């Protein structure tokens, strides 16, 4: 492994340095049919699951084949994407805001060979490399985070649970039988990188034990006031502690006030809290970002805790399946999961989804919590 220089001179680090050039210009990468018809699109149709056509004022058409991507991908996989794009699409390809991959062709005849090629490509375990779908009223890719593959604050993994859930819901990636599109997302801690707070169904990594305190190192590693200010419930205060006869500055955590958010650990390496038995998953439901019919909604906590069951998280998969099936069976056409839950009432949501209601689901965070209790006699038995 001999070091090979790029031309960068570590003796003169600022020499020849190029900065502030930003991203490449998107116009370099538009397929010709996109470039020519940009801003002139008349309408679109989903001609089958995973396949869209857009028709321009000029009469031009662009056919899009959407395939699932697992977001975490190797350069070998990206090169295979390139190979397909070169064979069928003139060397152009794009990714969606939900990390699916879209291959575009400019005539209908080119769709079937592209589809056949995509579906013929399998992984050694039998999985599809490029499953077609993710359009219309179905279940598309799961927006997710780093988990145990790269992050230091997760309470669960990301890639693993996503694979387990998508395997279970795979049929709904490639069909459109739901009342409306159903967006699932995952965040491995409640920093909620991504879309957990605004998704139809959301998987959230959660801790249930207060942080441990590495008193010997805490004042050396942490800016104590920042750790104190990081706590939403003011559970942390400065403290002096005795370690091996020496008096050290540190912090004290009031365990009764700690709700295990982990934000103090984000700010202070000496307050780790992850734990095999304590950590697991919270499920949320009913969020959306579009303004269609109803306003955007936050997702609500509907399952207080499920354990981390590696490698396939069966309890999480099962609870999500229950929600998907109850919603699919009961909601009206165009109704998002949150709109359905609000229409039938959350008491009915829990009944229909066969989910247990526990005290953990009642809001107790500051003044706004009151507005989530029920100030009416209107309820269903």
């Amino acid at each position: 492994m001999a070091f090979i220089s790029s031309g960068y001179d570590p003796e003169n680090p600022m020499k020849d340095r190029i900065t502030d050039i930003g991203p490449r210009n998107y116009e370099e990468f538009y397929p010709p049919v996109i470039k020519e018809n940009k801003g002139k699109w008349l309408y679109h149709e989903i001609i089958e699951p995973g396949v869209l056509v857009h028709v321009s004022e000029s009469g031009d058409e662009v056919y899009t084949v959407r395939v699932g991507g697992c977001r975490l991908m190797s350069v070998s996989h990206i090169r295979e994407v390139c190979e397909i794009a070169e064979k069928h699409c003139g060397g152009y390809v794009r990714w969606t805001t939900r990390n699916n991959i879209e291959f575009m062709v400019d005539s209908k005849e080119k769709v079937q060979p592209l589809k056949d090629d995509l579906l013929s490509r399998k992984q050694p375990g039998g999985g599809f490399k490029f499953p077609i779908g993710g359009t219309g009223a179905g279940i598309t890719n799961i927006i997710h985070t780093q988990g145990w593959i790269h992050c230091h604050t997760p309470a669960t993994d990301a890639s693993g649970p996503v694979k387990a859930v998508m395997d279970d819901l795979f049929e709904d990636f490639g069909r459109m039988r739901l009342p409306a599109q159903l967006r699932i997302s995952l965040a491995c801690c409640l920093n909620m990188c991504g879309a957990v707070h605004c998704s139809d169904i959301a998987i959230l990594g959660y801790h249930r034990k207060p942080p441990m305190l590495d008193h010997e190192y805490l004042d050396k590693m942490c800016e104590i006031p920042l750790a104190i200010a990081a706590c939403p419930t003011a559970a942390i205060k400065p403290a002096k502690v005795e370690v091996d006869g020496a008096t050290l500055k540190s912090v004290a955590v009031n365990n009764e006030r700690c709700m295990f958010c982990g934000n103090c650990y984000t700010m202070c390496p000496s307050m780790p809290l992850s734990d095999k038995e304590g950590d697991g998953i919270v499920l949320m439901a009913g969020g959306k970002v579009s303004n269609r019919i109803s306003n955007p909604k936050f997702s609500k906590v509907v399952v207080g805790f499920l354990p981390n069951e590696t490698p396939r998280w069966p309890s999480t998969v099962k609870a999500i399946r229950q929600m998907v099936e109850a919603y699919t069976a009961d909601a009206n056409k165009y109704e998002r999961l949150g709109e359905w839950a609000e229409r039938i009432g959350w008491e009915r949501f829990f009944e229909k989804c066969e989910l247990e209601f526990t005290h953990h689901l009642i809001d107790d965070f500051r003044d706004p919590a009151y507005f989530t209790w029920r100030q009416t006699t209107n309820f269903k038995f």
Partner: protein
Amino acid sequence: MKHETPLLDELEKGPWPSFVSDIKREAESRRVNANNIEYQIPTDVCEDILGLLELSFKDGTTHWKHGGIVGVFGYGGGVIGRYCDQPESFPGVAHFHTMRINHPAGKFYKTEYLRQLCDLWEFRGSGITNMHGSTGDIIFIGTTTPQLEEIFYELTHKHNQDLGGSGSNLRTPSDCIGQARCEYACYDTQAICHALTLEYQDELHRPAFPYKFKFKFDGCPNCCVASIARADLSFVGTWRDEIRIDQEAVAAYMGGELLPNGGAHAGRDWGNFDIQKEVIDLCPTECMALEDGKLKINNKECTRCMHCINVMPRALRIGNDRGLSILAGAKAPILDGAQMGSLLVPFVKAEDPYDEIKEVIENVWDWWMEEGKNRERLGELMKRQGFQKLLEVTNIKPVPQHVQEPRSNPYIFWKENEVDGGWERDINEFRKHHQR
């Protein structure tokens, strides 16, 4: 493979693309090294990442040390440092830093360009990526500190490509597909996303803010890039004239010749399309009606929710007088609770060079950079100092559109100059008329 991975092997089963199979593929590719690449980080990096992940699956916990501060000279962000907490067992991932690479707006690519990035990352990194990070960047996962400058040098010198953002700064802006391939787009999301990314390169690369700040650009209120939930300033396309109606196409929908919602519900029998039930009765403002077989819209009462257009894309089109709304303050829960964007500018034209929009952005930044506390998102400053303050600093007049409803508590602040006579009063004057 170097490590046994019985738990991860279970995730090679099932129909969805397996990240485990894919990483194993990359591990094998590096082991074989058919092109005799002089790998600049350990050849077995992919085997060690699988080994470490297997250990996490066994232990139910992460094995990355806290934090990590690395980067490239000239910038204060763009690289997320990461170190394994079992470096003796997994030396291939002892250093495993992430680089954020600013993606092109709309995430369109030419394969030639992707191949250049793949060659670079295979040579100087792990060969593992995220396509893409949640904020939008191309994510290169896993390299060593000495490679960071080398990668940056090649990116900028050979590929005309910069890093994205991280830290307390402007993060990489991103957008929906917009006018490139959507008939709903009310402005050119790619153009403004690119223009503002270039305009604010300094704010993106050198953290100067109290905390992170994100822009996202949605072409219409369907919000395909989720700006309203995931950007401190969200830009959502809209129009202020009339929805264009093609009555012949409306009749074609009613006659069953065209499938509702572009065929989005074709996987189930929902019965024949019923325009009354599926459009008119679902309109949130009840501003639609059928008269003599023709669809009428009282546009003055329309809130542009997109439902009717989504259901009948061939019959109904966005208006011609287009622009965007700006919403402010979206964020995840930490610290004070999750927020979605709150409407700040109901309508502004989105035309290059976007001066009016830049003025709003810069006024918001001037305020937040001065008043924002350490690690306080814009949304939290808005809660702490009040929405009125945001209006004041952006020189925007309060209008009813700024609220979902007026306040119900009467704890109303007045400015002294709004009140006749001001606040300086003499108790003795008061006592002349009111005995103790």
